[in-house]
């Protein structure tokens, strides 16, 4: 089996576009959460989100789609940065493209004709060249292939909040096992639209603590009230270490473990014992061939919801007997929850932690909630010189994924 390394990383996020902007905001604990500007949400209970502030510069066909489905533009911009960083300009038959995301966008206004909902009229209008009623989840992958060439395989994973972590884990194994020579993997998402925000509001998953503004997402805090939606994309280029070295590429980190599990418990609530999360983390450790003591930092899923945070903290304490000495980050506190892109963005945070020697703080954590005891990094970024980091992603519906990255030591 081959060692696999990350040779490219691109990101579009609520705290900045491009990895340097993204990292400086994370390291300083600068929040990207604020009032929703994308649409009038004054009558919604939920009025905050982590919006991407800079519209990416996109080629015409992508910009056209992104005007209606912004997440497609985020994916494209993240792919471009990742490929540039890895010194690649084309995809080919030896490359797999694997992206995670969550849900097609539904623009309800498109079925209004003559001042009333009229599906039949909307069909006629759409077929006559009017607005499209659907954008399949593989739209981004198709546009990426049109611009950069057709990959050997294109996969779109829709495992909710675990989707992009799964995409990275699956791609890592595929390159490790020599099924592919390279992988372009990660995720993209935006649920910051009327039905997206409204749907999550109906589920009771989002905070309505609008007055807290940038600090409304409070993972593990006693005053947490729920998640805040974010949007964006993150994409990694994975290549065999041997090839990266031969080509003199800069290596961001080595990928060395992945675990996946299902809760089989409930549609909206995690298994209260955290068994599913435990199995995902244990699976990643097993695959990395390391003991739990080797992990020096964890980027938590940390959504800021009551149940999730408590269950995740419990699961971490079960897997890591030395948890009191393992600093944890909760970057959703500043990015919001990027749903299908969350795992990839947080994997990106882990890469930057390994390279910059800092663990980003959770700036909204002022009083740790009972049951959420971990070694939280609060206030300022903490220094880091460990070797292994673990990133958790737990999906709505009970899909869990954990990834382990290792500092690259420069040796073959």
């Amino acid at each position, binding site marked *: 089996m081959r060692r696999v390394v990350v040779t490219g990383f691109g990101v579009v996020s609520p705290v900045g576009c491009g990895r340097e902007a993204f990292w400086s905001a994370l390291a300083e604990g600068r929040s990207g959460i604020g009032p929703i500007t994308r649409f009038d949400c004054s009558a919604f209970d939920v009025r905050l989100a982590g919006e991407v502030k800079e519209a990416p510069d996109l080629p015409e066909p992508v910009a056209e789609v992104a005007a209606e489905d912004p997440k497609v533009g985020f994916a494209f911009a993240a792919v471009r940065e990742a490929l540039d960083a890895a010194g690649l300009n084309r995809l080919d038959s030896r490359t797999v493209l694997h992206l995670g995301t969550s*849900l097609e966008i539904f623009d309800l206004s498109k079925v209004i004709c003559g001042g009333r909902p009229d599906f039949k009229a909307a069909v006629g209008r759409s077929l006559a060249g009017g607005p499209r009623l659907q954008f399949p989840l593989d739209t981004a992958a198709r546009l990426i292939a049109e611009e950069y060439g057709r990959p050997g395989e294109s996969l779109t*994973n829709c495992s909710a909040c675990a989707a992009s972590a799964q995409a990275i884990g699956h791609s890592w194994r595929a390159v490790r096992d020599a099924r592919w020579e390279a992988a372009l993997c990660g995720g993209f998402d935006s649920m910051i639209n009327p039905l997206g925000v409204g749907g*999550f509001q109906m589920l009771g998953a989002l905070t309505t603590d609008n007055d807290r503004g940038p600090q409304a997402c409070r993972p593990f805090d006693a005053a947490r009230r729920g998640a805040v939606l974010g949007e964006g994309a993150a994409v990694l280029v994975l290549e065999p270490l041997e090839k990266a070295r031969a080509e003199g590429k800069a290596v961001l980190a080595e990928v060395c473990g992945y675990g996946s599990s299902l809760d089989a418990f409930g549609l909206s609530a995690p298994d209260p014992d955290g068994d599913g999360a435990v199995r995902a983390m244990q699976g990643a450790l097993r695959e990395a061939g390391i003991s739990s003591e080797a992990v020096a930092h964890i980027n938590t899923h940390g959504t800021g919801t009551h149940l999730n945070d408590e269950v995740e903290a419990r699961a971490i304490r079960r897997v890591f007997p030395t948890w009191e000495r393992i600093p944890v980050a909760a970057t959703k506190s500043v990015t919001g929850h990027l749903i299908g892109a969350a795992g990839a963005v947080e994997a990106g945070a882990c890469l930057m932690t390994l390279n910059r020697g800092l663990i980003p703080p959770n700036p909204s954590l002022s009083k740790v909630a009972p049951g959420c005891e971990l070694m939280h990094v609060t206030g300022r970024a903490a220094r880091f010189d460990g070797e292994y980091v673990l990133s958790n992603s737990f999906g709505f519906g009970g899909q869990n994924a954990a990834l382990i990255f290792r500092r690259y030591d420069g040796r073959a």
Partner: protein
Amino acid sequence: MRNADVVITGVGMVTPLGTTARDTADAWRTGKVLAGRLLPELAGTPMEDVSVGVLAEFDAAKRLGSRKAIKYMSEAALLGCVAAHEAALDAGLRRRFQPEEVGLFAGTGLAAADVHQVLPLIQESIDSNGRFSTRLLGERGLPATDPLLSFRILANMPACLISIQEGIKGPSYIFTPWEGQSGAALREAWQAVASGEVSAAIAGAADTPAHPATLVYLRQSGVLGGHDVPSNASAYLVLERAETAARDSQRMYARIESVEVTPVDGAGPDPLRARIGSAFAAAPAILLALAAQLSWREASLCGSDRCRIAFRLGEAA
């Protein structure tokens, strides 16, 4: 890890030819062809002549042994759960394997919110100028909406419902939305069992392309040909190691020799289309389930995403 022989020990299907795997296979054997019908939602539109496959009525609650879970389900989730449950029972999955040893590898199609559920939400959100108002959506539309709607449109829900229903706790993937993707789910399941990552896998897909809005997309994108009959359908299979099945004296339909998903340049044959209709994401699993039951040694189809999905099967020892 040693690559082991992988066999199919459970099949479940809901198609226009039959609402069980056996009914579908029997209907195929006798040369039956699907019945089509027109959709009232498209009457008077440029697509009023599009015919969709007819599924015979069946009691899903009885099949699943639960009426409660059904209220969370989209049609795709319902079809997927019924087919997966049939496959799981066929293979004795719950009786023979620990939940953590079983993986779930699913394909799913385009999202398909029920028009009838969404229209009232929109109606409540139209202002006095006849325009959609997000303010009214917040004030009146959302409160008037069934909160379970979110569960019915999230793309991962069909697979999550299957995991809950069948108690599956191993690894999972859900790929979307075309044939190549659900073919990849079957391939991943086969490889996961062969490599020993899981002891058994439940793999397949459900798709509901006969949904009116989906039909419009299919027509716009050139995927839906003039004579195509889109069909809502589902198929799931249970895969496990041959030695495990032999140890348990479990019926083995066939041994999987290979599952290949390869890009192709243009359109190609789909042997299901004329008999079962265009089932899109569900088609590869239907083909494999038919092949397993009818002792075909090779089967392939070309998907609308320019992928060829090919299976080679051998006799189970």
